[in-house]
């Protein structure tokens, strides 16, 4: 019925389909698991801005080609820039990405993201801020940044901190993976639709001539089901997660987990401790602080703060763990990063504070978020 956009070719990293009431964007970089390139981010930003102006467009559908929705940002490119002494290029990349996140978080029309595969890091940033997130049996969610020497960015300090209890701290610090059922249970996903029904769902959504969230939600509900949590789901450990991850410091969180391990020999506890001990200690500390500040801030402030943090990381003033993490995990793949400082105890509050301060560089500026006409309640915060 509606013509496929003529600009869409095989080489386009974002495919665009123009339907009568909807725009459908498809991330198209399947070999790289749809990792967000600078080009993709710019394209999405332009597309989202343009669609907001167009009255006939009622909703946006964001999906992806291949087995991943989006495995994250194009970190490899950023690390290349850093190694060439060009941290500003990296900062520019993150600034653009965070602006896109903000645009999505404050968007006036509903965004439906079809998360039929891997959703990690930047992929979460490009979907979770939107109104509807549809998980499937193929969904795999994670914020794995602490293992890379980074921290959960893309506004994760906003959405992780608003998950039930202290589940956000758990996900953000350990990088633990969730399946579709778990995403639905904790609220990262708004619906669960079996992948075999996705094409029918799409068809139905394209017929919706409304931006009313209730109408769209009802449409998705027709294809949804409530999946059972698997027997070994982390979500069943919520009590222990709350008890341990509510502690004041990273050190105390690990201590609390070790105490739990004494009375409960489940593998889950030991593997949780393991992932914390493998992560960059600096990353753990700044991530915990970031999530806790984020809990008290609006999404815009979260992104501005995260931008400060990421600039400090790119400059490598306090720690160079990000380069080291990328080397060990993405480039050399020896999976054996040498973190520096190597232990939590070696990182003082002052060192953590520095990540949250303005960058000491004359030309540097805080992230300027795009002006938004109608700020939703959750975007407002005065802290």
């Amino acid at each position, binding site marked *: 019925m509606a013509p496929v956009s003529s600009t869409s070719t095989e080489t386009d990293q974002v495919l665009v389909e123009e339907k009568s009431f909807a725009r459908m964007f498809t991330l198209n970089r399947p070999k790289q698991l749809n990792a967000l390139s600078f080009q993709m981010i710019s394209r999405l930003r332009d597309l989202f801005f343009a669609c907001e102006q167009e009255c006939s467009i009622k909703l946006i559908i964001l999906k992806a080609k291949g087995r991943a929705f989006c495995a994250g940002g194009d970190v490899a490119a950023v690390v290349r820039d850093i190694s060439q002494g060009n941290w500003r290029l990296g900062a520019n990349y993150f600034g653009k990405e965070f602006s896109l996140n903000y645009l999505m978080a404050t968007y006036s029309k509903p965004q439906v993201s079809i998360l039929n595969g891997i959703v990690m890091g930047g992929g979460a940033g490009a979907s979770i801020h939107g109104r509807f997130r549809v998980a499937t049996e193929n969904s795999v969610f994670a914020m794995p940044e602490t293992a890379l020497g980074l921290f959960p960015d893309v506004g994760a300090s906003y959405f992780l901190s608003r998950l039930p209890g202290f589940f956000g701290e758990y996900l953000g610090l350990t990088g633990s993976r969730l399946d579709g059922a778990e995403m639905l249970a904790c609220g990262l996903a708004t619906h669960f639709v079996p992948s075999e029904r996705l094409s029918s769902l799409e068809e139905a959504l394209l017929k919706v001539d409304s931006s009313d969230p209730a109408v769209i939600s009802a449409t998705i509900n027709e294809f949804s089901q409530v999946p059972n949590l698997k027997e070994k789901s982390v979500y069943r450990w919520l009590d222990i997660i709350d008890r341990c991850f509510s502690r004041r410091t990273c050190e105390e969180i690990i201590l609390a987990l070790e105490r739990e391990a004494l009375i409960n020999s489940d593998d889950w506890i030991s593997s949780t401790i393991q992932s914390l001990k493998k992560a960059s200690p600096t990353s753990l500390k700044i991530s915990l602080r970031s999530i806790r*500040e984020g*809990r*008290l801030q*609006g999404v815009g402030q979260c992104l501005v703060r995260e931008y400060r943090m990421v600039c400090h990381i790119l400059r490598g003033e306090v720690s160079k763990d990000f380069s080291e993490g990328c080397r060990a995990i993405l480039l050399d793949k020896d999976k054996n990063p040498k973190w520096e400082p190597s232990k939590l105890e070696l990182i003082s509050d002052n060192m953590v504070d520095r990540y949250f301060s*303005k960058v000491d560089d004359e030309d540097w500026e805080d992230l300027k978020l795009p002006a938004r006409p109608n*700020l939703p309640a*959750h975007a*407002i915060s005065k802290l």
Partner: protein
Amino acid sequence: MDRVKFRTQILNRHLHRPSLSSPSSSIEPSICLQYSPPELAETSQFDTRSMRELMDNHNFADRDWLYGLMIQNKLFCSKERGGKLFVSPDYNQSMEQQREMTMKRIGYLLDCGVFEGWLTGKGVESELRKFSFLEVIGMFDHSLAIKIGVHFFLWGGAVQFFGTKRHHEKWLKDTENYKVKGCFAMTELGHGSNVRGIETITTYDSNTGEFVINTPCESAQKYWIGGAANHATHTIVFSQLNIDGKNQGVHAFIAQIRDSDGNVCPNIRISDCGHKIGLNGVDNGRIWFDNVRIPRENLLNSVADVSLDGKYLSAITDPDQRFAAFLAPLTSGRVTIAAAAIYSSKISLAIAIRYSLTRRAFSVSPNGPEVLLLDYPSHQRRLLPLLAKTYAMSFAENYLKMLYVKRTPELIKTIHVVSSAFKATLTWHNMRTLQECREACGGQGLKTENRVGHLKSEYDVQSTFEGDNNVLMQQVSKALLAEYVAAKKRNKPFNGLGLDHMNKSCPVIPSKPTSSTLRSVEFQTNIFCLRERDLLNRFAAEVSQHQGQGESKEHALIVSYQLAEDLGRAFSDRAILQTILEAETTLSAGPLKNILGLLRSMYTLITLEEDAAFLRYGYLSTDTAAAVRKEVAKLCSELRPHALALVSSFGIPDAFLSPIAFNWVDANSWSSVQD
């Protein structure tokens, strides 16, 4: 006449809305009914994050952690209004339910490790963390903070400061983890501020090595004892100690009042104080002691002891000094009360100012848009001076807190005087601010969920407990007089309590000060010092005049109460000014320093305008007073653009404000009724 016509037109428009009857036009609420977040219109000229750090002063990340602990747990009754989450106790619950909720919340905070190190921790760092946590807890609910304060600061503090090693080892750890729940029985029905007059009496039985505590008459019943009505297992008992028929004055003992199952112990009678105007989450009770026997070791013996065979032993022979040494450590209560008062003012101002930046009333021209409340100069005059005072007093509280945590024996007197002055001044300021904010929010201020009105009843007690404000202020002027007498008698310069300005020559106030003079540090300091200096001279003269007529010093002080009150205020205002000045001086030139300068000027000039002493004693001419008044109005309009940023800098999470601080249209919409 025009006005009438204008109103008629408006009514007419309301009654005949053409848009409603015409199907082609979309139905949209008129502009005056749409909520627009203040963030869209107001931009911040300074970094609110830095300002928050300046104000909160310490333990920012710890505070944020604790805010988060409360927001994430359902015990703190979070509910969504207008798309945002708010936490607050349910004040519609019965007194009994509120008390049980308070205890449950304490249990949760305990499990989270909030109280770790509150009594067993050492050093400035752990003390500051404790203070910051108590401040944050008080922003959620005053009852919760008071219940915790009684247990840790009064019961725990008494064990810590009045007790010795044996008490510390036995009680501190168990107090920190709530194995024992403590209360603090000092006030009696017949004696409050005059602790030395209490009537509870304790004797020593050398046959059994026990003390025997008695309530000899109804006026000796312990009264208002927080925690006594329901939960406390132990209490500190303040009592006269009678050894061999000789009264040794007031001493403190530990007595168990309930067993671990919560049953009241034999020879103890407890009754509830009943429903109160506020703080119903705290179980205040009354206690009678009927020959209650406690082991000799339960005397808190840091200052005095009784030997096994019943001999009274004390290194301090003078009972006056003994009593003073005894009570000195209790100043922590005044430090925390003053802090709680300031945070309560911050909450109410943040709510009232945010509301005034989104609520409109009346248009100034026909068909024109209605005007934002805070764009009315009169509304600015109501709220912005209180905002400036809150800023100044926030720095004063920070100063007091640091003075307290870094205390040395030499500083005891200063801490006593400053904490008395600031406790009284800051809590009075809070009540005034709450009332003004309540009224500034109009009808919405009356809803409990909007906080500002309800806080009045929760915080009213602050002017009474831990020292009646008026009594405290009398002590301030009495202490100043003592400094005066000492300096004159020994012909030595003034030293301490900030009185060194008395050594200099009397400052001269320019007769026709310009706007920039009025805003200068020099003028502001001089006028405050002049007032303090002159009042101290007058007070000393009046007291000595009465004494010259053969009256006792005590009587002379009592009849000179008017000057005493003026002097107390003069001391307090001048000391507060110095603290905000100090904060300003530490900053390097820039927007933050400029805004503090404006606030400092507003603080000073509004004080000049409000305290009649400046005109009464002629420190200001009527002309200058008129110039001050003009300058206040000017400062209001200059602070107006910063209003939002200034309340944002308080760093109070949204969830701790209230629905009218955000989208109050959505929060009150019909769809929210149906949820």
